[in-house]
Structure formats: structure tokens, C-alpha cells
């Protein structure tokens, strides 16, 4: 009898060289010594001012540069400082104590922008109100450092004629021209433990990534995935339990169930593919940015794999020479509250062009009071810049004046949209990976 032998060829998963660059976001070595946020603003102003001073001669060569206090009326000059946006609708704790209970204007549901907002430029010598039509206050937020060309008016304002932003930082190496397609999967907002998360959808995602789903062609596609990045909000702990009262034993198990679910899921992924997990706004990590890595003891079975990596938020790493930088979305959400924009990738583009990931920190976004550095300042341009937990998937490829090329990705919440993102490292192309469990018959 002839035995038909079928050749079972093993499909091998591709691999990439991973290099973590999270050191500057870790705060183990920092010690709080009673410092205030003025220290981080000082560091930010100086870092960016040195940079802008080097760019001003090529921008406006014939104009003098002066400080805010050195402004002379009617003389055109360039000033550099931090922008502060005075917003009428921004909630202020002092309003509760003000004696006149005037009628507060209605706040729009999605942000605090008002047509009466105005900008002020501030440096260590003083501050000056900005006027003119060049700068549109709804475009900017507090905390950005820019250079302005204009002159002081009789009213004491600074009439702005032109503005210079820092622009995209220099990019180290262009992405290596890899011969083969290698993919990175981004997912965020799994929100396990909440009523909106669909376990079947999540399991489909895990099965697809690990190659347990589909025919050989699908499996070959999955074998080209070299890295998975989970960008925050993996759990949703039932909030009603965290009201400050003692927990009954059965409630205690309810509290830890979402984390256990995540651990089971991550074990399946980590068993076959390198995995990075970042903390998000709802995860059990600290509140202030930069959020520290989720502790290993939360993931007893998946942490034993060397493919499992718990990372900071923001997260920066390098795969085969391609640099990635991204957050779990808090910086973009905060940005959205205080300025106008058409979509989330536009906010991503603005923050990169201002060379600062989270300009609203520490004004409205919680931040650790660093004294001698500002870790959110972008020194070297990434090739891929992402933000998790956004409302919908969006992507854009931007180019800089020096030939920098950046892929911007806004990763949607998986529990709402069932969509993850796949990025091809060879050509920086990006597409959505959607999973559905509803059948319309």
C-alpha cells in the first residue's frame, strides 16, 4: 500500500531585533524634594529656546532677538517663550470661591474652546499678551515654546506677524530597506472586565496573531508579525468597588478578575510572539505621566516568558532600526479638550512638529515634577508615532524639511471598534485589522 506522505512544512515566525529606549521615562531614580512645576517649565524653555535660537538666524536673519522684558515699543524683533492660553471656559478651582456667582457660559460637550481665548507669551523675565490674526488661539495649547516675530503695540500687546515652530527633529537613520515584509500589530483599549468588551472578539484577535486561525495563506500572513504592542487600557476595573469602603471577599475577587483575564490572554500571545504592554489611564499604574510599567506580579504566568515586556507610557523602542514612539492617548485626549482639530492624527502631527509629546503637561495633564529635564521633549524623530485609545483609526504619513518621514497612527479602542492596526515596517504602510462577531443574515 502506498502511503501518501504529506509534507508538513513548519511556518516560521520572523524575528526582529528589539531595543528598548524607555530609560528616560522611568522615575525610579528620581526623588521628590519639594520641588514645584516651575522646574520642568524652566528645563523645557531652555531646551527649546536653545534650539529655536539656532533656527532664528535662518528664518529672520536681520531681526534682533530679545527677551519679553527687553521689548521696546514699535521695534520689530523676535521673542521666544512658552505659550499660555487663557481660556474662559477652563474649569478653575477658584471659581468655587468667587463671590460673584455670574452665569457661566455653556460649555461645549467635547472641549473648552471659546472664541474669547487669547494667548500669552511668557519667559523668565515676563509675559506679554499676543494679538493679531496670525496666531489662531484654537490651534495652540499652553506649554508650547515658539519663536514669534512682531512688535509691541501701544496698548502693551505684542502684535504677531510670523511664528516659528521647532519643526520635526532630525531623524537618525532612514528605515532600513528590508527585503521582506515584517508587521507590527498595535492594539489598545481592550477594556477587559467592562461590559463593552467582547471576549470572542478578543480571542479572535489573539488566535489570528498567534497563527491558530485561518488557512495556510492566513497563517503565512500571521507569521510575518514580529511584535505586538498593547497601548494601554487593557483592563477596566469595576469603579463602584473603589469607593473607599472595605471590600468583602467576594468583591475582592471581582476586582482582580479583569487582570487575570488579561494575564491569560497575554500568556497566549507571549508564548509565540514578543509583546509590549503599556499602561493606560484606567490601568493599575500611577496617574501622573510618565506612567510606570505595570508590575510583573500582576501577570504571574505571562511575565515568566522573556517575550513579555512591561513598558512605560510613553513608550519608545526600536525594531530593526525603525524607531517607534507612542503613548496610550492621554496626551491627545487632553489636547483635544483645549484646542480644535479635525481628527486625532492632526493632533499627533502638531505635537511632533512642536517637538513635545505632551505640551499640556503639567498644566492640565498630570505629570511628575522633573527638575533637570523634560522627558517629553522629542530629541530624535521617530519613524512611527502612535497614540492609543482613540475614537477611530486614522493614519497619515508626514514628511519633514530634512527628509524625515513619519507614519502617524491613531489606534482605536478595541472594545468599541474591534479594530487593531497592522504596520508594515518595510514601507511604513498601515492598515486596519478588524474582527466582527455579529452576523447579519
Amino acid at each position, binding site marked *: 500500500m502506498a502511503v501518501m506522505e504529506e509534507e508538513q512544512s513548519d511556518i516560521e515566525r520572523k524575528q526582529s531585533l528589539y531595543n528598548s529606549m524607555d530609560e528616560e521615562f522611568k522615575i525610579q531614580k528620581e526623588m521628590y*524634594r519639594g520641588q514645584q512645576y516651575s*522646574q520642568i517649565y524652566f*528645563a523645557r524653555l531652555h531646551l527649546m529656546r536653545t534650539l529655536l535660537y539656532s533656527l532664528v538666524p535662518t528664518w529672520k536673519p536681520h531681526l534682533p532677538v530679545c527677551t519679553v522684558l527687553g521689548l521696546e515699543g514699535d521695534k520689530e524683533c523676535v521673542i521666544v517663550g512658552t505659550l499660555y492660553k487663557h481660556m474662559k471656559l477652563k474649569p478653575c478651582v477658584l471659581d468655587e470661591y468667587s463671590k460673584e456667582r455670574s452665569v457661566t457660559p455653556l460649555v461645549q460637550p467635547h472641549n473648552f474652546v471659546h472664541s474669547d481665548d487669547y494667548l500669552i507669551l511668557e519667559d*523668565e523675565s515676563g509675559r506679554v499678551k499676543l494679538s493679531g490674526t496670525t496666531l489662531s488661539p484654537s490651534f495652540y495649547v499652553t506649554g508650547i515654546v515658539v519663536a514669534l516675530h512682531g512688535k509691541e503695540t501701544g496698548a502693551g500687546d505684542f502684535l504677531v506677524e510670523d511664528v516659528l515652530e521647532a519643526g520635526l527633529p532630525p531623524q537618525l537613520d532612514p528605515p532600513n530597506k528590508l527585503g521582506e515584509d515584517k508587521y507590527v500589530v498595535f492594539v489598545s483599549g481592550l477594556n477587559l472586565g467592562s461590559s463593552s468588551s467582547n471576549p470572542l472578539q478578543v480571542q479572535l484577535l489573539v488566535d489570528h496573531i498567534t497563527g491558530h486561525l485561518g488557512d495556510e495563506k492566513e497563517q503565512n500572513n500571521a507569521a510575518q508579525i514580529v511584535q505586538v504592542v498593547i497601548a494601554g487600557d487593557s483592563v477596566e476595573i469595576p469603579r463602584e468597588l473603589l469607593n473607599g469602603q472595605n471590600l468583602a471577599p467576594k468583591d475582592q475577587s471581582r476586582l482582580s478578575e479583569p487582570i487575570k483575564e488579561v494575564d491569560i490572554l497575554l500568556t497566549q500571545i507571549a508564548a509565540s510572539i514578543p509583546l509590549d504592554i503599556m499602561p493606560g489611564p484606567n490601568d493599575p499604574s500611577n496617574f501622573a505621566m510618565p506612567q510606570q510599567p505595570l508590575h510583573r506580579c500582576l501577570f504571574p504566568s505571562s511575565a515568566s516568558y522573556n517575550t513579555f515586556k512591561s513598558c512605560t507610557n510613553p513608550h519608545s523602542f526600536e525594531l530593526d532600526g525603525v524607531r517607534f514612539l507612542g503613548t496610550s492617548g492621554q496626551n491627545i485626549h487632553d489636547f483635544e479638550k483645549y484646542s480644535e482639530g479635525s481628527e486625532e492624527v492632526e493632533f499627533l502631527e502638531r505635537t511632533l512638529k512642536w517637538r513635545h509629546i505632551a505640551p499640556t503637561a503639567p498644566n492640565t495633564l498630570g505629570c511628575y515634577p522633573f527638575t*533637570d529635564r523634560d522627558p517629553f521633549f522629542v530629541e530624535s524623530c521617530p519613524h512611527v508615532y502612535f497614540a492609543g485609545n482613540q475614537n477611530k483609526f486614522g493614519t497619515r504619513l508626514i514628511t519633514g524639511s530634512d527628509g524625515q518621514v513619519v507614519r502617524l497612527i491613531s489606534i482605536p479602542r478595541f472594545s468599541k471598534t474591534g479594530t487593531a492596526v497592522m504596520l508594515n515596517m518595510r514601507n511604513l504602510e498601515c492598515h486596519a485589522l478588524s474582527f466582527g462577531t455579529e452576523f447579519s443574515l
Partner: protein
Amino acid sequence: MSSKSDVKGFYRQKKKSGGITKPVAGKSAKASPSLAKHAATFGSNVVQPPALVTHGGALDLKDNYDGSEEVLRQFDMNMAYGPCIGMSRVARWERASKLGLNPPGDVGMLLKSGKVGGESLWDGRV
């Protein structure tokens, strides 16, 4: 404020003549100058304790404040190097040099010598 009898009980004073054991005599000798230094607070019978009257009659109100401390205080107050609260002077000097602000070299030498106050002027006061 503790009364005289409590202090006297705490610092056991023995007569100097015919001291019974050496260590006790040593303790009593040590006790009197320390007693004299806090004479003003503990209400001793010494009218003009020597420790408070120094510098040719001027009151000793400044504690380790001299020329080098003055230079360091000027460094603390200098706006160009940023806020000084919540940072040690050395850390602030290093931050200034890292940001390219060229802090004065003699301040750096003073701080590295370690003989001067390491904390800023407002440390513990604000």
C-alpha cells in the same frame, strides 16, 4: 520649659574635688559647657553665659554664614539658572551647566569642595 531641678537631675553633677570615678568626672566636665550653652533657655543661675557673648560683644545671630555662603546665596537668587526651591545647589549647578547656561566656575568649585551648605537658601523655610 523644664525647671532647674529636672536639668540638674539629668546632668548629674559631681564635685570636682575627689572625683570618685573618672568617667563621671568627665561627664560632669562635659555637662557644664553644654549646660552653659543652653543657659538662656533652661534658666540657670549663670548671668552672662560665655557662649552667647562672642565676636567682641556682638550677638552671635548668624550661623555658619560667611563670604562663600554669600556667593552661594547670590547663585541661588540668580534668575538665569531657574528656580532654586526643591533642588540641592549641586543639582542646580549641574542642570545649569547641562543646559549650557555657563554657571560660574567658582561656585562649582565651592560646591564640589563640600565645605559649604548643600541646600538652597529657602530649604526648610518655604
